[in-house]
């Protein structure tokens, strides 16, 4: 493993104002992503796991700059030569994605792509598969029409839609869910990105086609040297797709570790509760369940102490509700936890 990460995220924040109507000043903010830091090595896949509303999708959208961060920096490693060609400034071999604009941002998008959750809504119903897959090439002005056709055919072959000629000029609604998600993968990979954000790419697929798509994403990552940020609510899927998993709760990463380490030795009380609630496809297995109170709330102007305090089964009054939200610290062997009591 290289010591130079491909992506470094430092203190990333995104606050959404809560609108109270026209002309009134907003004082309330949803802290969707609140001081999140992590890094991803080349060819490594990081899973971002959490319940709905924890900020995992917002984090993904910040990384591809579909959203502009409120604060924080997103560093992306780039070769000096590439950077000069694309007209971006490097700091120690990294470009700060959070500040990119215009031409430089458009060029940056050649390196980073995204796969979306819904295979039915993520494709324009009036475009053919060829147009959908070739779109990144077309907007980036890469290749002639003939070259694009050739490349699309190649890509369709890679994602298992063979023969490509029989798929290229069909419309999305003529394909099944699994086939469409393969098209989405082809679109994301057609301009050879090094970093792909996958936002629940398999959660809407049936079990019998899901494994195939998961397998395909792994094969292509190995083949083309891609790093994934894999966003999911399903820990079992994350186990198979990710080298490392970060668990998010109300805008914060509460725990991050190598996948098997996290699943077998969770340290944070929230991670423990989350893992214990995951159903196991084995009727002989009787697990111990850690009950936690309440449900996920919306982090509007949250208190500065630990976000999990109100629901935590082991919280200590006078410590957890007095001190600041605990920092994410290495508790040994790259197992990061944000909890006062670990």
């Amino acid at each position, binding site marked *: 493993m290289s010591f130079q990460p491909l992506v470094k995220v430092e203190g990333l924040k995104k606050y959404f104002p809560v609108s109270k109507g026209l002309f009134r000043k907003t004082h309330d903010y949803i802290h969707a992503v609140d001081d999140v830091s992590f890094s991803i090595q080349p060819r490594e896949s990081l899973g971002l796991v959490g319940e709905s509303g924890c900020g995992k999708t917002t984090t993904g959208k910040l990384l591809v700059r579909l959203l502009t961060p409120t604060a924080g920096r997103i560093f992306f490693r780039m070769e000096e030569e590439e950077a000069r060609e694309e007209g971006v400034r490097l700091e120690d071999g990294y470009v700060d994605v959070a500040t990119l604009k215009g031409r430089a941002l458009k060029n940056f998008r050649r390196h980073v792509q995204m796969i979306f959750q819904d295979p039915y809504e993520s494709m324009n119903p009036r475009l053919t598969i060829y147009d959908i897959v070739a779109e990144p090439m077309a907007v980036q002005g890469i290749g002639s029409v003939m070259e694009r056709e050739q490349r699309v055919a190649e890509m369709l072959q890679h994602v298992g839609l063979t023969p490509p000629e029989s798929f290229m000029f069909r419309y999305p609604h003529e394909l099944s869910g699994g086939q469409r998600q393969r098209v989405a993968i082809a679109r994301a990979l057609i301009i050879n990105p090094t970093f792909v954000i996958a936002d629940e790419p398999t959660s809407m697929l049936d079990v*019998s086609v899901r494994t195939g798509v998961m397998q395909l994403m792994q094969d292509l990552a190995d083949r083309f040297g891609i790093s994934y940020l894999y966003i999911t609510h399903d820990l079992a*899927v994350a*186990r198979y797709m990710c080298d490392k998993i970060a668990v998010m709760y109300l805008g914060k990463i509460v725990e991050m570790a190598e996948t098997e380490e996290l699943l077998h030795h969770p340290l944070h009380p929230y991670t423990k509760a*989350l893992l214990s609630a995951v*159903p*196991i*496809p084995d009727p002989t297995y009787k697990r111990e*369940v850690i*009950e936690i109170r309440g*449900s996920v709330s919306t982090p509007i102007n949250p208190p500065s102490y630990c976000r999990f305090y109100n629901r935590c089964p082991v919280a200590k009054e006078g410590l957890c509700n007095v001190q600041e939200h605990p920092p994410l610290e290495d508790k040994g062997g790259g197992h990061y936890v944000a909890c006062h009591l670990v």
Partner: protein
Amino acid sequence: MREPVLSVEHLTMHYSTRKGDVHAVDDVSFELHPGEVLGVVGESGSGKSSVAFTLMRLLPENAHIKGGHVWMNGVDLLTLPEDEMRRYRWKRIAMIFQAAMNTLNPVYKVGDQIIEAMETHGVAYGEAARKRVAELFEMVGLDPALMDRYPHEYSGGMRQRAIIAMALSCDPDVLIADEPTTALDVIVQHRILKNLLQLQKRLDMAMIYITHDIAVVAEVSTRIAVMYAGRLVEIGSTEDIFLRPKHRYTEALLQAFPSIHGEKKTLLTIPGELPNLLNPPRGCRFHPRCAFATEICKEREPEYRTFNPGHLAACWHPVGEENA
């Protein structure tokens, strides 16, 4: 064993569309015994929800029941006139729909909606009905004070609980739950499942639990029916299905499903796509995707074979008979 509360025989149902007939449910038979939870697993288009809607006789206009019987206390629900069926619905056989939490009417208080359901079925009226709602709320783990609130003041999990309370309000013999926790996060899902199972035991109801999630079905059911492309391919006790699956589809499905527990086994990929039900494959419907398929699978529909008492599968080359 007690007499079955519900017995489905050779149920066949098609949807007619402009492109032709969709074979949604094809020759499905099973029995539901008192006090048991029958898990029905299948992927999209397997017909699992269509079976439920047929049992409730809540089908769209283009659905046609082509044959079969649904016996309940010696009465065939499929031949009942609509007004008599209405009396069966909710009182004898109730259903929690997929995404039911969005079916609460936003302009009425949640409690009033449940009271109305009880009054229309003549279960309880006025103050008695209010008392019953309070009891039901208590049962499903909701604060009875919430009954005078509106649906938008509830969270997703709370709404799902209210729906369960509504389904139980008329004290049904059979409860059909169609993916009741699919849209919920795991922690909430776990709590609702636990609650639902407690209630099922306490009220001694029979339950049909429909889902695509094999892990959930392992946790809730005593028996499992596996459906594929409109057909019931295998039925048996939970242990039989998970530990001794016979149908090749069941086996493949179990091997394709990831788990966070135990060894990280290699997941199996099932090639191909789900079949088009306008024109389902001849013979065994799984044969185009099955690694064990031979000529006979393409030609003839497999018959059900009993492997264990109550464990039936329709497969020409069942697991464990590789040379047959």
